[in-house]
């Protein structure tokens, strides 16, 4: 059978509508882009169906980066509501990133080794690049050490949604402030967060708010605030070019060029104090122009006006849906899920927790049609794999090794297409924004190979390279030991594949996995004897090496499967 091109394949798989819809992005939510793929028609009623291992794993896979044995055991005897009580608890503030970059070739002239740099003066160039790298490493470390909380996954969500790019901001202190802000508001208030991000230095620099003045208006942020952060570009969003210009004029005055940095002020001299008229879409609202320091209040009025639009709540709910459920939203889902969630968001004054609680406890979320259909983003894949396999965190007292480890992970995330604090563009990462393929944008022949390389490297006995003295190693023996009965190869295979993939492996794959554990069609008892002698004497290198020589290709094979790319 000849290989199909990707386009042909999509046509065969889902009918032509998927491809056709790519040209009509504004209307896509209202069409049925799923082609022949059936989608859930369930709503947001509280889920009353079977509550067992598949459901718990589904919830955890979507809420955390990977599900370790510990994660599962922590939740296995809880009700859905109890699980959500834990998951929806905001993680505490983390100690800031520090100087772990001093070495024989480089010394930070201001900040000693082990101390934070977040309050120091701006340092463009080489030093700031080191600090920015430290910030990305630090953030990766937070994800790697995540609590049993949605905090980290929602922080990444906001970074994708209210995107800034460190390489564009070029100021590590501002990048830190931005990340700290979205993390502290991860499970907070949507409206409050948009208001704060609007005048956050990183965003002002990223979308040119800092050069938006009465004399030289810059429409960039005024547009993206509407198109990407609030009312969006859904079918019922009809803001006009005039609205973009009016918003831009309101936002004038926030930064007065480089001399004012780093203390952000509102500079009335740069503010356009005339009245701003909005279109019929905004009910012809006029925001009263104000002179002097009061000019800053216009920004609050603008945010209030944007959040009075129903579309703003719907837009966020669609984003959350694509982050936690699936990317195809048809008319039914818009009606059964998005609209009611938007209602809950408005009713709760834009607090996100009630929306997340409703979505993640809904009949819709636990519909089997919505299980195992998310393509892992690179963080899910890399950080999730480390967490899942009992990866030992670097010791907290070895700051240098900690940062080296996190650096190594940042580098892989970059190769895989999701470097922290570097969304691809203003709309975030294509996996969550690029119609019509969404998640499928994560995967091409290059990134799929790199994903395989990455998991191969992690499962290998040498581990993932950090430096000549250190590697990130998965503890395959520990992971396997915690399965229900690893001495029985059939049980080992069924337990491990169940835990590692929401989609069942077919008979041929199971048979193949067995041939890795038991080559040459030798009988089960050979494995049982080997495993038992390992348990009897865990210090016997010959036995543990014989086991690892099977477990390594065994897990490498599982982790390479397309099944493993899904949660």
């Amino acid at each position: 059978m000849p290989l199909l091109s990707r386009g042909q394949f999509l046509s065969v798989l889902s009918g032509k509508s998927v491809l056709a819809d790519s040209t009509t992005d504004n209307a896509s939510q209202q069409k049925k882009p799923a082609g022949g793929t059936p989608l859930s028609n369930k709503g947001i009623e509280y889920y009353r169906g079977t509550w067992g291992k598949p459901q718990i794993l589904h919830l955890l896979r979507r809420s955390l980066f990977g599900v370790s044995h510990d994660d599962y055991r922590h939740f296995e005897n809880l009700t859905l509501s109890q699980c959500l009580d834990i998951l929806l608890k905001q993680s505490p503030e983390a100690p800031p990133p520090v100087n772990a970059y001093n070495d024989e070739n480089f010394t930070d002239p201001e900040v000693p080794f082990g101390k934070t740099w977040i309050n120091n003066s701006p340092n463009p160039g080489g030093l700031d690049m080191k600090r920015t790298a430290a910030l990305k490493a630090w953030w990766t470390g937070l994800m790697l050490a995540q609590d049993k909380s949605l905090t980290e996954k929602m922080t990444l969500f906001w970074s994708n949604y209210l995107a800034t790019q460190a390489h564009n901001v070029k100021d590590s202190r501002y990048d830190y402030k931005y990340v700290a802000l979205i993390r502290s508001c991860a499970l907070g208030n949507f409206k409050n967060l948009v208001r704060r991000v609007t005048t956050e230095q990183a965003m002002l620099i990223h979308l040119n708010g800092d050069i938006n003045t009465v004399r030289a208006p810059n429409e960039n942020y005024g547009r993206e605030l509407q198109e990407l952060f609030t009312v969006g570009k859904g079918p019922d969003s009809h803001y006009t070019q005039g609205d973009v210009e009016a918003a831009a004029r309101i936002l004038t005055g926030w930064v007065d060029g480089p001399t004012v940095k780093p203390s952000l002020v509102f500079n009335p001299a740069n503010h356009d104090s005339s009245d701003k008229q909005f279109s019929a879409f905004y009910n012809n609202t006029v925001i009263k122009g104000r002179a002097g320091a009061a000019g800053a209040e216009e920004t609050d009025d603008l945010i209030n006006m944007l959040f009075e639009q129903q579309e703003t709540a719907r837009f966020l709910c669609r984003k959350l849906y694509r982050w936690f459920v699936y990317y195809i939203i048809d008319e039914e889902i818009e009606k059964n899920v998005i609209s009611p969630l938007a209602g809950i968001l408005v009713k709760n004054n834009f607090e996100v927790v009630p929306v997340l609680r409703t979505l993640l406890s809904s009949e819709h979320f636990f519909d089997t049609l919505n299980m195992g259909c998310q393509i892992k983003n690179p963080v899910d894949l890399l950080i999730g794999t480390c967490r899942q396999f009992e990866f030992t965190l670097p010791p907290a007292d070895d700051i240098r090794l900690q940062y080296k480890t996190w650096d190594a992970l940042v580098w892989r995330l970059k190769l895989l297409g999701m470097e922290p604090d570097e969304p691809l563009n203003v709309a975030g990462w294509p996996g969550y924004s690029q119609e019509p393929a969404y998640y499928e944008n994560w995967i091409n022949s290059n990134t799929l190979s790199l994903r395989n390389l990455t998991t191969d490297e992690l499962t290998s006995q040498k581990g993932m390279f950090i430096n000549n003295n250190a590697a990130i190693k998965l503890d395959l023996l520990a992971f396997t030991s915690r399965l229900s009965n690893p001495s029985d190869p059939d049980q080992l295979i069924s337990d491990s594949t169940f835990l590692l993939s929401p989609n069942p492996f077919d008979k041929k794959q199971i048979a193949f996995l067995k041939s890795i554990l038991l080559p040459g069609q030798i009988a089960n008892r050979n494995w049982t004897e080997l495993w038992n002698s390992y348990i009897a004497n865990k210090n016997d290198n010959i036995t543990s090496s014989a086991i690892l020589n099977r477990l390594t290709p065994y897990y490498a094979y599982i982790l390479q499967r397309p099944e493993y790319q899904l949660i």
Partner: protein
Amino acid sequence: MQRKTFLKSTLPIAAIPFLRSCFNFDFLKMSSASANTDGRVLVLVQLEGGNDGLNTVIPLDKYAELTNARKNILIPDKFVLPLKNSSVTGLHPAMKPIQDLFNNQRLAIIQGVGYANTNLSHFRSTDIWLTGSDSKTIINDGWIGRFLSQQFPDYPHGYPNRKFPAPPAMQIGSVVSTALRGPNVDLGMALTNTSSFYDIEMGTYDAASNTPAGRELGFMRMIANETQQYTSVLKSAVSAQKNLSKLYPPPGANMLADQLKIVAQLIGGGLKTKVYMVNLVGFDTHGAQVVPSNPVKGTHSELLSQLSIAISAFQDDLELMGKQDEVLGMTFSEFGRRIKSNASHGTDHGSSGPVFLFGSQVKGGLFGTNPEIPANVSVDNNLALQHDFRSVYASVLKGWFGLSNTELEKTLPGMPSTLNLFKNASGNV
């Protein structure tokens, strides 16, 4: 971290990286190795489970002892296939095609191959054979991997390139053997054994279900199919050469023949891969090794028949393609089986056994002698070691691939002694 450091330290276990589109290198690698391995291919045939050497290569001068030790599985001597120029050694009756290869000077039988203090665990003993360690040492990389990592310096960084357009080694199957694992990286690529074999992944799956999960699974399988780095070079080899031998059984009838057929086609099509690994499973014959009423038949007979048919068809194919002088084949198994049979018409794990080398350049004949069989055999008695398996490996590396002593020392430390196994002593055709 520098890019090069990352690549060098990246360790793919099974998938060959598709780095070409990511890092666009295409320059000639200068190999520091002195060996000229051009036009030299090795095909390793792994007999998994532990082959019963005593019922494979049969000592005709030991029938009294054999009758005492393993009467319930012994092949009556009248059925044993004689070997040219040997009155005391014969082959299992299922091995007629191998007998022909032997008699036509295309097969060497090396007797009593193994290692001291045989470990009777399948797992450990397989690791020993694949890594080339002794029974006490743990080595993490494979003997072929160490050999090829010297021929393909820095691999996979900068590969494929004009000089080395093909994978260094290829495993027919989905997981790369430990034998092909180099010090830093796998030197092998896995090629799934399917009838249309470059239809690599899709053909091996059940169809994806009509659900969102099935939709995404299907999408990724399609991409996985496109992801094989060497797809084009494999396809061009396949389109350049058809299998020519009429001796292959129909697809699905003989797992080893199906694999060797692919190997022959790739070699015939000009693929410059140095080492191929194929396998035949099921040699762990604890029970029902033979049919009780007719010891000539049974599981072991079936396996030896498949082995013989597959090898002779492969050899025939290569000769019809004119490639016979470029290819050396070698069989091995993790251990032999016990001298004394058990009550269930089978044999338990034992020690050394015979290794076959085949090919037109092999100096045919018997190397070593028939094993000694104790007159009063106990359940613990095992066959004596005649040739350390690393000596056989060293003979192949030196005699076939022309490795220098320095290269050999890096591949098999301790300089095992070598046998002269090839028609032209220098290894040059």
